């Protein structure tokens, strides 16, 4: 990622979330007490049916939502609100429409008061890395969905966060674009800080409902149950990095997929009937 590696583990301890009820209905429990620890440099995918509380969990880690109970710590610091140490890419297109691609990428750098020369250097690096050269002066509305999400990824990475939070970032893209974006993200992550060792990578927490996407990207897949969400299974993805798209055709991939499909189908059915 040509940026300093992540150094601090993420600790999610006993995090719950309930939403106040409407009218006479009691509060709705969205998230049962959840524990999860993510080591520095890990790529963890949170997989679950829609409405299972996986996005809620990610938003709590980001500090955009407050847990009803439990704590989130990044290293020794407890998360009490959003901050630039936890960069995020959303499913919806959240580029600032009044800023060009370049100014969107520089947003966090301007906020931190990074010197102009350094801003230019970082901008050039991430424009190149995400294949956006030539588009730096475009307005977001002139870009395709895939390019908007590439810009959003560059914007989050340029800020050099300790951990990258991705909330179904490719969920609104068509299938082919989604696969290209997965490969781009994986390439950037696998590069790490250029030191060539596995530890030189950023910590990533990736929420998705796409089984293939989870296996292809993550070194660990956390499966969540239907609402109220809880972690029902954790599956190590023992496929070695660096991975390429061909890995999706291997028997190991198929075996993992079969296992995760079994876990997920049960939850999807419960969510649909329940």
């Amino acid at each position, binding site marked *: 990622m040509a940026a300093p590696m992540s150094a601090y583990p993420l600790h999610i301890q006993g995090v719950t979330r309930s939403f106040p009820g409407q009218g006479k209905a009691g509060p709705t429990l969205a998230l049962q007490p959840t524990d999860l620890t993510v080591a520095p440099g890990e790529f963890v995918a949170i997989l679950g049916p829609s409405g299972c509380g996986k996005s809620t969990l990610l938003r709590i880690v*980001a500090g955009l939502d407050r847990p009803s109970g439990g704590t989130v710590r990044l290293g020794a610091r407890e998360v009490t*609100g959003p901050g630039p140490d936890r960069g*995020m890419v959303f499913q919806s297109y*959240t580029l*600032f*429409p009044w800023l060009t691609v370049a100014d969107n990428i520089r947003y966090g750098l301007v*906020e931190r008061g990074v010197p102009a020369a350094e801003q230019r250097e970082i901008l050039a690096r991430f424009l190149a890395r995400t294949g956006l050269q030539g588009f730096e002066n475009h*307005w977001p509305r002139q870009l395709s969905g895939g390019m908007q999400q590439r810009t959003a990824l560059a914007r989050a990475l340029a*800020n050099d966060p300790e951990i990258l*939070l991705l909330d179904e970032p490719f969920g609104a893209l068509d299938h082919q674009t989604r696969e290209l974006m997965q490969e781009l993200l994986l390439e950037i992550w696998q590069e790490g800080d250029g030191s060539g060792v596995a530890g030189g990578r950023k910590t990533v927490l990736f929420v998705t409902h796409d089984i293939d996407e989870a296996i292809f990207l993550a070194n660990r897949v956390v499966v969540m149950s239907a609402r109220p969400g809880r972690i029902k299974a954790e599956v190590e993805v023992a496929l070695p990095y660096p991975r390429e798209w061909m890995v999706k055709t291997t028997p190991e991939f198929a075996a993992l997929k079969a296992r995760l499909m079994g876990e997920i189908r049960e939850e999807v059915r419960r969510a649909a009937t329940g």
Partner: protein
Amino acid sequence: MRPLQPVGAGARIVLGALFFALFIGVWAAVTYGGVVPALFLASPGRALASGWALLAEYGFAFDIGVTVWRVVGGFLLAALVAVPLGLLMGAFKPVEAFFEPFFSFARYLPASAFIPLLILWLGVGEAQKLAVIVIGSVFQLVIMVAAIAGGTRRDLVEAAYTLGSRPLSILRRVVIPAAAPQVAEALRLVLGWAWTYVIVAELVGASSGIGHMIMDSQRLLDTGQMIFGIVTIGVIGLVTDLLFKAVNRWLFPWAVL
């Protein structure tokens, strides 16, 4: 014709001009045809001739200048108060809770009903004219700007937070730029209303301005002058509206207005 199907640029201009022609045609027919006596409605030619006389002999250009100055002055004063306050109300809910109920009440107070009071307080000078326009537009504008700022996309605010923005920079770098194009559109609307208020203010206790001229013409039963005055306001309104639109497009190229 199919529903919602766009019309070409050329056809749009032709159709728009056609209605103007039709309007003037009917006007000419009823006046020159003697359907309506000249005492009540001057013919198009008579209105134009009266207008020429007004401009050439009675210094009507000065009246136009005075009225434009009042509109712009009152409008700018109202905008200077309403835009910052509306942005603060939209962004910070306690500020909104403090002002909103009163302003929602105040915007229904008819500005023209204040004219007698304002004459008592401020006399018949420029301050009174400006005050009518400010009272007529400031409350409406505050409420509109607050609603625009309050409607800032939450996901953009959240994205800014995850990039390290603090509350004040959320206001400066997200809420204000996001609201700017719609606020400019609201200003364009309010400028139109300011034209209504200024004429009302000039109909009472004024010694200059387009409204004053229209009142004078009524005494002389010169419907040609009255019509020319009204049309002048319409033309100025149309031109400023087009200018305002062009400026907004130039200022906010990123937005689809």
